[in-house]
């Protein structure tokens, strides 16, 4: 019996050595170690052995079983590795083929610029206000100290709907609406982005519709140095730390003193970016604020102008053509 066991081991080892397939290995396992396998068959003859022989043969049989089991396990692992290797080889792809694209969309550059500016001023404690684009002459002009025959009306040619209703030529009427809404309370810190309209022929530098952002601060003892400081803080956030600004005297009927603000560009020199000034006492008064107690500053900037400078765009019409070759350049904004 001992010889039969040893023969079985030898035969099994030889058979396993020749196996190259997981299925065949499984069959071999059943053949030698299964319930009806050869080892079991041999051990059934244990009954014929003497008391002395039985433990030794039993030990040997167990040894052979353990040996064969571990051998099968090793072989199994070896064959699995081989199979995986083959699979990996078969599954090879050309990683340089183009990806299956999900085209990203884009924000309109004007809207992206507005969001950026809003965030800068929100960080400085400003609210974002809104006002009507179809506006009363009263708010667009009269309350801003621009009477019917004021020569400043020439500065802005207006789309009228009726003698009293027009398309706002500036976001400044929102100053008046904000003051009225606040009913004499301070502090006021607001900006208002929005569309405005003027009778200009559309060309590279003019557009009958464009966007402005208005700003208004009213409180006790607001000074021009605060206007200067606020605008400098804004410009540094928008155009980079260390960007210089310059104030120049200018004229708007609803601010006094009035200023134009330029920023310095190393290639192009001084560039005008916005108009501002101390709120005219008559504007405060008409909206119910006593100009002796309260002062304020206001500013207004053209969004297109800022975007033109920021992205080096040369034609304002690009913003309104919505050419995808243009819009796609702002995918990363």
């Amino acid at each position, binding site marked *: 019996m001992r010889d039969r066991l040893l023969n079985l081991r030898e035969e099994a080892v030889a058979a396993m050595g020749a196996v190259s397939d997981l299925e065949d290995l499984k069959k071999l396992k059943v053949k030698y170690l299964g319930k009806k396998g050869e080892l079991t068959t041999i051990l059934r003859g244990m009954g014929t052995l003497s008391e002395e022989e039985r433990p030794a043969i039993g030990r040997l049989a167990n040894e052979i079983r353990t040996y064969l089991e571990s051998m099968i396990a090793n072989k199994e692992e070896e064959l699995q590795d081989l199979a995986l290797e083959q699979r990996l080889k078969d599954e090879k792809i050309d990683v340089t083929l183009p990806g299956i694209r999900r085209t990203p969309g*884009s924000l309109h550059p004007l*809207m992206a610029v507005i969001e950026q500016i809003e965030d800068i001023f929100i960080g400085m404690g400003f609210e974002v206000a809104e006002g*009507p684009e179809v506006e009363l002459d009263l708010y667009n002009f009269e309350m801003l100290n621009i009477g019917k025959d004021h020569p400043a009306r020439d500065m802005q040619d207006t789309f*009228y709907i009726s003698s009293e209703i027009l398309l706002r030529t500036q976001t400044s009427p929102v100053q008046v609406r904000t003051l009225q809404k606040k009913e004499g309370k301070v502090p006021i*810190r607001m900006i208002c982005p929005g569309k405005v309209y003027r009778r200009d022929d559309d060309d590279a530098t003019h557009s009958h519709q464009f966007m402005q952002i208005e700003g208004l601060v009213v409180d006790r003892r607001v000074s021009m140095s605060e206007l200067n400081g606020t605008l400098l*803080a804004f410009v540094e956030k928008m155009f980079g730390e260390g960007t210089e600004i*310059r104030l120049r005297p200018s004229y708007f009927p609803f601010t006094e003193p009035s200023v134009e603000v330029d920023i310095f560009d190393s290639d192009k020199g001084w560039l005008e970016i916005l108009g501002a000034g101390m709120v005219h006492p008559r504007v405060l008064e008409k909206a119910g604020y006593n100009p002796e107690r309260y002062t304020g500053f206001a500013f207004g900037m053209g969004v297109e102008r800022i975007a033109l400078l920021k992205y080096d765009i040369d034609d304002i019409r690009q913003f309104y053509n919505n050419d995808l070759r243009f819009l*796609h350049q702002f995918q990363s904004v």
Partner: protein
Amino acid sequence: MLVSYEWLKEYVDLEGISPEDIAEELNRTGIEVEVIYTRDSGVKGVVIGQILSVRPHPDSNHLQICSVHVGQGNPLQIVCGAPNVSPSQRVPVALIGASLPGDIQIKKATIRGVESFGMICSAKELGLPDKVLMKYQTDGILVLDHDAPIGEDIKTYLGMNDQVIELELTPNRSDCLSMIGVAYEVAAIFDRPLRLPEVEIQETFDEGTPVDIILEAEEECPFYAAQVVRNLKIGTSPQWLQNRLISAGVRPINNIVDITNYVMIETGQPLHAFDYDQIHDGEVIVRRARPGEAVVTLDGVTRACDDDTLLITDRKQVLALAGVMGGQSSEVTEQTTTILLESAFFDPAIVRRTSRRLGLRSEASNRFEKGVDPERIIPALSRAVQLLQEIAGGEVASEIYVEEIGDIEDVVIGLRHERLCNLLGIQIDPQEVIHIFRRLRFEVDYEDGIYQVQVPTRRPDINIEEDLIEEVARLYGYDRIPTTLPWGQQLPGSLTREQKLRRIIRHALRDLGMNESVTYSLISSKAGKEIASLDPSAEPIRIAMPMSREHAVLRTSLLPSLIQTAKYNLNHGLNALSLFEMGRTYLTKERKLTNLPRENWQLAGLITGNQNTDFWYQDTSQALNFFHGKGILEALFQRLGVNQVEYREASLIGFHPGRTAEVICDHQVIGVIGQLHPKLERKYQLEETILFEIDLPKLFQHVPEEITYKAITRYPAVTRDLAIVVDEEVQVGKIEKAIRQTAGPLLESITLFDLFQGEQLGEKKKSLAFSLVYRADDRTLTDDEIQVIHEKVIQFLETTFHAKLRH
């Protein structure tokens, strides 16, 4: 305003100050300088010559051979082709070696066998713009005055070395619409002395020329002065005067007109010369026009007037539109010998309204409508009379007649030193403030912290304390104002809920691959009618005087603009488009607007074309259709937390009748999605195009304010498939709704995973396969429990939709 440097130098000491210095300082202190230019556009080596003789060219019909004396050496032989050349003329001669604008070099030439030693120049060849030339000067060679000094450099003679500073004036600084005004400003900036022209008049008048001024419209004309000058000899003005006018951008015409223009530019006071002999009885009546009255103006046009027009008349006829333009009946002509010279103050508003209504903007109306300096009305008149005497041989033929209503009052404004410092945020010594007012030539007294400032009449823009603060600030220097941040109570800044939601939508759609566009609010009336607005009762609002048909009405839908944008992009070769825009529509029910419209924020989207065409990975190529558009909306609603959205078949103008749905949330229509009507697709050359438009305030009503977490259930789900055959007509949405209602709360989700039609099903039938997921929060569902529900669902579908179960 064009400011000649040479002219300005006469009125203010500019020693050591260049035109560039002036420009820089004007810019710094509040007057924008557009540009500085010299009137010389590249002329060198051109002198004044006299034509001695002219003879025909032997080999040409139009060329002539001239002998020209140029002040030195022998006369030059020059071949000239101009038809107006003739002996004894004085003309500009470009000598050999001269250069002319446009990089032209003059060399010795042989023209059809005749040698030519230079060129006789036309005005154009010297670079003079047509704008400042008279008609006869634009044809042929430029013929100069008979006493032009032979041999002199033409640039000296024509004042071409002068530099011109172009000012871009804001409407408040009308004081700088005159050379004297600019002189005051420059003198203040540089703290330099002024030397204004002095007027001397030889009084030689007699009693023969009476003038009777009657101011019927007192408010519109509170001040009128006139004087008569006789024995005038009309002719061309001396070259120096012409040169100054040209520098100022004004075309010389004749000595009388030139003098009135010259004095207007010098003093800012417009003057008008009437032919005195055409005025009946020397009467000058200033009044508003009567109904139906008309006047033929100097340009030969008949102008209808209304009662808001101010006229100068005599008893019989209209002489002029006050402050705007003279009338033809009293025009100064070649035959005129006696003129009545007018210098007046007209109400700025009425001049402005008249000039705008008639579309007549002149140098004069521009000054009147900003308000002329009352203190300069008579000095300007006298200055013109002086020049008429000196230049046009005139004799004073009357006293200065003056009619005035009321007195000119001194304007004195108090300025508090403390207010000045607080408003500007600076510390400044009162002595420095006083010095600034002295430089401006404003009289000032300082006492108890208050400056009493007397503002001269030439500065009508200064009325209140803040105006004085600006004057101080601009001469103090805006660059000296410190930078501080607002010191008051601090507030947290923020966006409103609607502003935040609009941002979320913008970013969500961008992330879904859509491109944001911004289009015009004004569209054509026709395009506006092509497609339905979300508000069917909206009346489009018309602009009173549109600039073009393309931009005539305010939009009531964002879709027409998106369609235009799509067309634009397809014309430029793009094939797949995915666009959106958020903006306002302008909604009113009024046919004629008397109240402000409702401005409603809306979202619109457009997709069309083929994604990923001709791509190596074939599975991704897709023609975009209705369901792509709907998928975008569904993803957006999910992002906003808006569930329970339904889609109901709809028929709307501009949309495909079988492929359009209203978007409904809680029984309220919040928008629309559909395919563009094929007729419009053809018109705009678009492929299948899907549009959607959403009313944002309505949508936002359904956006939950807060999210409450629901515990994730630990009990397993049971999935059952359900395949049925129904009539083609039956809508999947209705079946899903029925399943949900019948199954009740244990049905967690329902997904359509298969849809097909085929012969084996029978005609007009379709097969639908749903996957139903059941789950309870508190227990594991048993097969029996689910079986009961599932049977109920099947039974309901069988009775309601005549559905047949497929196995």
